[in-house]
Structure formats: C-alpha cells, structure tokens
C-alpha cells in the first residue's frame, strides 16, 4: 500500500508533455520555465545535441555509397525511401516502414521520426507566418469550421517564438505573409533577383522573396545562451547541426528545459492512452508502455500537453477511451480523426535562362526563395477554392563532358564549366479538410505494444486537380514573361503524406459540437488536456506549418499556467 502511494507520488508531475518534436519541445521549455515539474515522454530513443549526430562531420566521400541508400534498405522500406532526405547521412533519424506499420486505406506516405527531437532534426526549416486571410479562410469560403482565433491572437506569439528560435528573413511588407522578428535575410542569386523584378513589373500582387527560415544568420544573446552559433551554410542540416545553426528541439528547447531542473525526459516511452477520471471530470495521467521492456507504468499530472505529431496525436486520443468518452478522449462531437488534410506538393515547373552568364553564387544556401499565395487572397477569383504558395530557386548548371577514354576522359570530367541558369519551382497547395478524409483505429491489427494500428484515408479532390493545373499555368506564364526558356511542367501524382505536412483531426473551433479543441488548444470536454501540434489545425493554408505549431504551443502553455495559478485547472 505504502509502496503504491510512493510509486504514485514518484510518478506524479505538474505537467506531462507527450512528444519531444518541434511542438513538444516548446511545451517542455515553456512549462519548465514557468516552474512546472514536467515529464516529457518520447516514444523513441534519446538523441542528444552534438553527441548523437554520428554523421554530422562526415565528408561526402566517407559515406560508403556517397550517400545513396543500399538497394536492400530501399526495397524493405518503400515508403520512407520516397522521402528526399532519406539518405545515408540521415537515414538513422527516420522510422523504417516495417518497424511501425500502419494501414493505408488510401495511399499515404507517412514519414516519421521517432526520437527525442522528432522531425525537428529533419525539417526543411521554412518558417512563414499565417495571415488573417488564412485564419478567415474557412468562414469566408464555407468549409471546415471557423477558426476560433484571428491573426491578432497569435501575432505576439509568433514574435515570441521567432526571437528564441532565430528566424532569418526580409521584411517584405506583403499582406498575405506578415513580417516577423527577423535576423538578416539570406541572399538571392542574380537570376532570382531578376525574376523578382520581372514578376513585380508584370503582376501587382505577386512577389518573389527569399525564404524565411529557422537559421541564425546573426547570433543574438538569446542564441548564445542556448549554445547556438551562426549558421555556417554547410547545408547538411538533416544530420543535426554541430553549430546549432538551425532550430531543432535537440539544439534549443529540450536542453533549455533541462537547464531549468524541472524536466524529466523519458525516452522509449510509448504512450498508450490518457487516463480519464470520471469522478474528477478530468484527465489524471497517462499509461506508458516501455518501448523496450513493454512494461506498463502510469504517470500523473495536473495538465497534459499532447504533441505526438498530428496523426499519432489522433491515434492517442482515439485510443484513450473511457465510459465518459467511449469514442476517444474529448470526442463528444464525433469529429475526432476527421477533417484531416495535407499540403499538395505534386507539381513542379523547371526552365532555363541564358542571361547573366557572368554570374554565379558562392557557398551553400540552406534555404530557397518563396512565392507567397497570390490566388483568391482578397476575394474568390478562380474556379477553385484557396490557393498555393511556391518554392523557387535559380542556380547555374554545372556541365561536363563524359566523353573519351583514359587521359581524355579524365580531362573532360575534371574540367566542368558553368552552363545556363537552371530555374525551378515547386507547389505548396492548400487542401480542404473534409469529413470523408479521416484517420481511425484499425479494428483488428495492433502494433508490437498492443496499440491499434492507425488507418489513414485521405486523397486529392477536384479542387486539388484544378489548383495543380492553375499552378502549372501561372508559373509557366511568369517564367515566360521573364524570358525563361525550355519551360517544363511536372505532376508527380505523389500520394498525400510525402509533403510531411499532415494536419487536423482534432481541430480547433468555437463550437464543441463540431470541433475538439477550443481557442486555447484545450480539449472542449476535458480542459486539462491541450493539443498543440498539427492535429489542432482547422485548415491548412499554404505556409509550412511548424512555426504556427510553435506559436500555438507557447500561447497555450502560457494560458494553461495562468489557469493553474488561478485554480481554474
């Protein structure tokens, strides 16, 4: 009896954070900084900054296959092998297909990173703010439900997280893409700047800007305090950065939380479910299965932050059943798991440019240029809803002849020259969350820890097809007006998922009958549970979402602690 009480006491914290990726790391930082004894649960292994980046200082020739994954690995892992970053230098940070199966009701390439830091080690680091046009979207265009917040609610929290994370960018003054707290922008190449000018000449509402990205381009005291230095432009980010040049949980929020002395980090902790106490009318803790020993332990806390990454957060809530919530925690509305969506990354347009043959670049830029959404921004003007942002870049081609044998061949391959400019763009389209797009627990199959497999069912629709067509036409037209030649359009028809921007399922909304979370990311019907990762997203807009998750998390943590102090939680 005493032993039980001791065990319970030992396993009781002020707060529990489920997940240590980009949003979980922020929850850990904010809650521990505010004095809460916080248990951070991570299903994967620990990855310590610097110490656990085994490839970070390897030269390209030190990789046995110069980076290429062996065929056996590719064959055994057809899903993750589709990801552009699944190469010899970073493969150890990706979930292998067979280790963590899931059910594809419709094709979905689910790319995951199960370790401390999650996918924050691997992300593409683009950090564009949402604007009010994005938050007003569902209400204006009549889909999903109205966002319970507007830009003004999150604006200060964007600033808050940007200053700490370190966001490089230019104040471009574009209504659809609000400016933030920027470190100096990265430079554009000659042809990128030229395209920017040409687009400005030809279109009053289209802009080419350098990407806003989570790289320290000028170290501020707050970055020095984190032990992070200026980005050295290695462009090897996916290995983990020895300089802490880009933002990751591992380099930034997790060690910060650790230094408060208030964090207990428990890797290899698979959260099975959230425990709901009917008498108390609140969640009291979580059931954890040790990833290695499979032993079950319960941990308790006054508040719980769910940051397991969008799809797994849905899985966890759906699997947290009780008499009060037979269909999943907080699922009175029946919408939990539904209205999931993603970003449409199917289309690309490439071209060439003959001018500026006397210019090139020097060094690497771990960033690209960005074309903010210009379709249907102020009002509906096309035959499809919403719009797309796009990536853009222009670099000189490197040409070399592979002709000859012996000394001739050698002479050819060792003397490359610069060719024409190679120009490329990729689409980032908003997709509409629909009731028919859902994730659910598989009725029969379970994983190695006895947790039901997640069944995923989402697809493109007619709106997406029209948007792809428009993107290809509009970018081609913009290229033509800039005098680019050899314009080629591509539609990869890739399945949803490879964008790695899956969102929704536990959406925010004003009405508990049609949404899972309120405007503070709090479960409507279970107020001491907060969901601040991608699962909370009511709509997707076009911007890379991580920055918004960070801001939501910091905002929700601030609210949660104030509520606790006021004895409201």
């Amino acid at each position, binding site marked *: 009896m005493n032993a039980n009480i001791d065990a319970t006491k030992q396993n009781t914290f002020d707060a529990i954070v489920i997940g240590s990726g980009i949003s979980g790391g922020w929850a850990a930082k904010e809650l521990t900084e505010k004095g809460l004894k916080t248990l951070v649960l991570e299903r994967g292994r620990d990855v310590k900054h610097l110490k656990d980046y*085994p*490839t970070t*200082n*390897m*030269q*390209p*020739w*030190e*990789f*046995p*296959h*110069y980076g*290429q*994954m*062996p*065929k*056996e690995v590719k064959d055994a892992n057809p899903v993750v092998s589709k990801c552009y970053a699944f190469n*010899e*230098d970073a*493969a*150890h940070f990706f979930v292998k297909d067979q280790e963590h199966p899931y059910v594809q009701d419709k094709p979905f390439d689910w790319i995951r990173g199960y370790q401390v830091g999650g996918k924050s080690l691997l992300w593409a680091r683009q950090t564009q703010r949402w604007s009010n046009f994005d938050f007003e979207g569902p209400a204006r265009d009549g889909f999903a439900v109205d966002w319970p917040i507007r830009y003004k609610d999150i604006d200060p929290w964007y600033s808050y997280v940007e200053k700490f994370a370190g966001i490089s960018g230019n104040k471009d003054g574009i209504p659809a893409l609000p400016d933030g707290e920027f470190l100096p922008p*990265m*430079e*554009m*190449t*000659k042809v*990128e*700047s030229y395209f920017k000018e040409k687009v400005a000449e030809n279109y009053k509402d289209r802009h080419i800007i350098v990407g806003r990205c989570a790289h320290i381009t000028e170290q501020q005291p707050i970055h020095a305090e984190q032990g992070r230095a200026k980005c*050295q*432009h*290695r462009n*090897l980010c996916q290995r983990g950065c020895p300089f802490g040049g880009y933002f990751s949980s591992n380099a930034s929020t997790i060690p910060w939380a650790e230094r408060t002395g208030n964090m207990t980090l428990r890797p290899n902790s698979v959260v099975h479910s959230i425990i709901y106490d009917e008498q108390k009318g609140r969640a009291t803790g979580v059931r954890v299965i040790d990833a290695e020993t499979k032993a079950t332990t319960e941990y308790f806390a006054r508040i719980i932050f769910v940051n397991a990454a969008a799809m797994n957060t849905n899985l966890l809530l759906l699997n947290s059943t009780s008499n009060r919530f037979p269909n999943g925690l907080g699922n009175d509305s029946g919408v939990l798991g539904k209205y999931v969506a993603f970003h449409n990354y199917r289309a690309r347009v490439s071209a060439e440019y003959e001018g500026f043959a*006397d*210019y*090139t*670049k*020097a*060094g*690497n*830029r771990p960033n690209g240029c960005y074309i903010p959404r210009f379709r249907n921004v102020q009002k509906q003007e096309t035959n499809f809803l919403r719009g797309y942002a796009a990536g853009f870049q222009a670099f*000189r081609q*490197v040409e070399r002849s*592979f002709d000859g*044998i*012996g*000394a001739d*061949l*050698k002479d050819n*391959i*060792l*003397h*490359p*020259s*610069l060719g024409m400019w190679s120009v490329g763009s990729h689409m980032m389209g908003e997709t509409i969350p629909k009731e028919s797009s859902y994730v659910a627990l598989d009725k029969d199959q379970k994983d190695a820890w006895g947790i039901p497999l997640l069944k995923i069912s989402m697809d493109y629709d007619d709106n997406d097809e029209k948007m792809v067509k428009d993107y290809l036409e509009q970018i081609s037209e913009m290229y033509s007006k800039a005098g680019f030649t050899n314009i080629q359009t591509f539609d990869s028809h890739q399945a949803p998922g490879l964008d790695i921007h899956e969102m929704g399922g536990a959406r925010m909304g004003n009405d508990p009958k049609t949404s899972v979370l309120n405007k503070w990311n709090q479960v409507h019907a279970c107020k001491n549970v907060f969901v601040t990762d991608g699962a909370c997203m009511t709509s997707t807009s076009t911007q890379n979402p991580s920055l918004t998750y960070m801001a939501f998390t910091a905002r929700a943590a601030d609210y949660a602690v104030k509520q606790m102090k006021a004895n409201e939680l």
Partner: protein
Amino acid sequence: MQRRTALKQLGLIAGAAIILPHCTSKEAATEATVKLNKLQVSGQQENLLATMADALIPKTDTPGAKELNIHQFVLRMMDDCFDADAQKKFMAGLTQAQKAIVHKTGKDAEECTPAEWQAFFQDIEAGKIAAPAQGEDNLKAFYEPFRQLSIRGYLGSEYVMTNVFGYKMIPGKFTGEVKIDANSDLKTILA
C-alpha cells in the same frame, strides 16, 4: 551509419588500410580486399578491375583511379545498390571482358598495357567486340556500370573533391551574386 563503421568500410582506419596484393600469379587464389555481401569476387578479379579502372582514368598530373581505390567503390556500389540480375550480368560481363581482351591481344589480361585496355574500351563503346559464340552477351551490362561508377567514384573521391574542386564542408557563408569571367578557375566557379 556509425562513423567508425563507415570509415572501416572505406578502409580509412589504420587497421583496415588497403594494400593491394600485387599478386598476379594465376595459381594463387586470393580473396578480394573489399568486403562484399553478395558479389563473389576473387583477388584476381579485384586486381583486374583496378587495372581496368586505372586505364579508364589513368594517372596523369593527378592520381589515377587505382591509386584512389576507385575499383573498390565500383564493387561496393555494385554489391549494395544494384539488383541481383544486374550483379550477375556485371560479373559475367567482367569474365567476358577478360576473355575478349585475351582474344584481341593474344596476351593474358593481367599483362595488357593501359593502351591496350583503352583500345579495347573503345571497341566496346563502338560495338566492335563480337558477342560470344555461346551464351549471353553481358559485355555492355558490365562496361556501362563500370564506366559510370568509376567516374562517379573518382569525382566524389577525397582527392578530387578537395584538391581539384576545392570542396569545403563549411563554406561559412552564402554569396548570392558572384561575378565571374572566362578565366575564372574551377574552385571559384564551383564554390
């Protein structure tokens, strides 16, 4: 991939340093020095491949393929990154190449000069080597990946990346606009 494992596989750790056995005796059945999982390659075949790679990319004022162990990269890639059919044809094609150059020159393959190998490669590229009287013709199924992987291995080698192309893992910065002229050196244009 653990750094140490990777280095080991490349033979960059002292204990695993690669010293090519200069054994040309046909009788001495030696094992390949590079550790392979699927391909069955003898020491003689490895030496032969080294000779061929060095004829394809010879030493001039810069090292040739053999000195940089490019044949080992070729074997490692063929072993790990190609399917069983391609591997089978590659090995069969290697044997076929060996026989064909003997037929062409009347000398043992080991004794052929770089110039003889180069002339032989030219014949292969021109389609002048007759298919064997019996069995499959795998010469191109060997030669094409051999050529491609040798070039890739050579261009990606430490020597070439650092000494010829000036690769820097830590550029420190990015400059968007760099003016160049016709006389700009490689290290400038590839920076």
